[in-house]
């Protein structure tokens, strides 16, 4: 299988817990979608309910800059 490009990866290192499922978040596969463009990433994800956590630094940093770039495409 061809290795898929992952645009961003972050490991929760056991510091994040899903409050609903009471289990630690792990590094999981996620995807950002915007204006019909997809970006595979690895983010903290709850293994039970699938809650994907987008940290503040990521939202205001990389995510924002990609949004802006796509908006003007």
């Amino acid at each position: 299988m061809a290795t898929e490009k992952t645009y961003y990866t972050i490991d929760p290192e056991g510091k994040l817990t899903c409050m609903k499922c009471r289990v630690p978040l792990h590094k999981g596969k996620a995807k950002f979608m915007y204006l019909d463009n997809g970006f595979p990433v690895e983010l903290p994800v709850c293994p039970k309910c699938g809650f994907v956590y987008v940290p503040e630094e990521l939202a205001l940093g990389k995510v924002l800059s990609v949004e802006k770039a796509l908006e003007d495409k």
Partner: protein
Amino acid sequence: MIIKERESTHVYRQKRLFTKEELEAREVLCVHEQPAYCNAACPLKLDTKAMVAAIAEGDFTKARALYEKITPFPHILSAGCEAPCEGKCKLCSLGEGIAVRELEVAAVRWGEASKKRGLLRKKTKKAVLYGMDLFTLFLAGELAKKMYPVTVFCAQEDYAAVIAACTADLPEEAQAASAASLAKMDIKFEWNADPASALAETALKYDLVCASWEVANQVYPGLEIDEAVMVCREKKLITGKTEGVLGAAFGAKKAALSADRLAQNLDPANTRGEEGSVETKLYTNLEGVEPSVRVPCDTKENAMAEAQRCIQCHCDECIKGCAYLQHYNKFPRVLTREIYNNVSIIMGDHMMNKPINACSLCGQCSVLCPNGYDMAEICHMARQNMVSTGKMPLAPHEFALMDMVFSNSEAFLCRKQPGFDTCKYVFFPGCQATAIAPATVRAAYLDLCNRLEGGVALMLGCCGAICDWAGRYEMHENTVKFLNEKMAELGNPTIIAGCPTCKKELSTHENVEILGIWEILEEIGLPEKAKRLDKPIAVHDACGARGDTETQQSIRRIAETLGCIVEDTPYSGDKSPCCGYGGLTQFTNREVAKKMTDKCLERSGLPYLSYCMACRDQFAREGRESMHLLELVYGTSADHCPDISEKRFNRLSLRNELLKDVWKEEVEEVELGFAIDYTPEAIAMMDNRMILKTDVIRVLQNLKETGEAIFDGDSGLCVTRARLGNVTFWVKYTETETGFMVHRAYSHRMNVQTR
């Protein structure tokens, strides 16, 4: 309600902004790149303006280099040029124009001769000149410069004699210099010749045959020439009769160009390009320019002083007044072309989206420009165009558009005055007044009800300017329709607008009678509790009142009635700049909006009196003492600048309180079932990040329903999120006894999912 996000970036649609002809017709209005009056007057196309600028800086060598570009004999030309440029100098209308010819002499005198040698290879076609007069002398120089091998048959015996014969009045020193430069030119002289018999005998040996007018007439009496190209077609002879030094120099230029055409066996009259002096459309503002008189250019310093009188004619009327144009540092002509191209891009980066969305659409440029260049219209058209092709991102405008939706739904109110079946008037205060100064709106409405005959209805909402500014034409049409229906329900009363932008916007609706509240107040007089303000103030004219002199005057009269000493500021009235709110600049580009506000405030150090609540708010935020006319009139001041959540809260509370107090209708408050507190940091952060308290409430309600949140062991904060429309909002909180304490909030537009 959700506003639809733009389409996929992979949809390749495009629509022309306007035709190429219209583009050109617009571009031509911008005269910034038109030549200065002196440059345009010079048939030899001297960059006079640049030459004078070089002398003003003391760079005589640079000035001389510019001068040498147009003539092989700078001494001769500068000494005798008739200088039509001087009469065209803009300073002539005030005092004395620049002594251009004297400055040319100065450049030649104190500047070093250009050492640049032509790197061109010698041409193969050979040129010959018979007889030396001023025209053929210049022509010999021009042809040598063009790298033709040149041979001259003349009656004189040496260079000095040639120069003396051609330029009898030239001072000795200049004659010597000219003779020296003639000697340096790569021209072969046949001295002591009889040019007329030489022409008859030797002309066939050469490709390009030129003769002085006298010699040509000796050989071919009564010959006819085409003056425009200095050629006798019948004899294939380059010659002509010229008058004066400039005439000879210009004639030689034309003849040299004809030589080029003939060398290629082409008709000398075709495709010659622009020759001679031209008309310029330049505009130059002489405001603040003092009349002055010529300084004799007898020393370097005096020549510099004379050159320094030059005002370097140019037109920057629009850019001087507009923070937006200054920010992008582009003249409308260039900006238009780039926007036109941007709109035509099918795929790839649209670099001009930001400038298109940063214009305040205030229309100041159309007043400042001597030709009425309307950048606002172009930016507005471009926005509509982008919306129509699905290329307009929603992100820059969504907050403002949702704010408008809020104004015209949850916070909307339309009621007749209690006890009236029909109302003569309806008060329309506008979305900014209700958001920023609700107490003033309330006082104004109650006053109008009290003092006007015939009933005054009330309509709280947005006039539609917001979606119009965003280029959302469908939304705008719907808004117009909605408001028209509501007006019809009231029996189409005369609208009393509280805001000049609303007045302008609503007056475009069909069958509308509209007045500004200021006009009513002038008619019925000011209320008793009107606050006198006995001090000097600066009036900031709203962009909504551009072209509405009656409104501008009315505001000033009311201010004066209240004791204000209205001091005139630059860029007032129709020339007024935008406060930074207009055109949604405040939402699309805070940096430019701030510059716009600063530009407004730099005009005066006095407290500002506005008649648009958005202006009042923008100025107050910058720390200036700022008030709205209605705050004075009703003695109610909006004491602090509300944040984005307070603006919504204010509108809603005003609506609900008026419903309760005036119409005796109770509005049921929705119970949340939990308390929300915010840290001061969260409040500031939310305002900055355009996150409303109502967004946070919805996220926390979602949390209550789903229980979806995570705990971050590092910060000790819980984090939850909800997708609201096109945006995902995240809230960091701690639980309290009664509900939540919000610590941070952020958002993103991208959708995230597991894969």
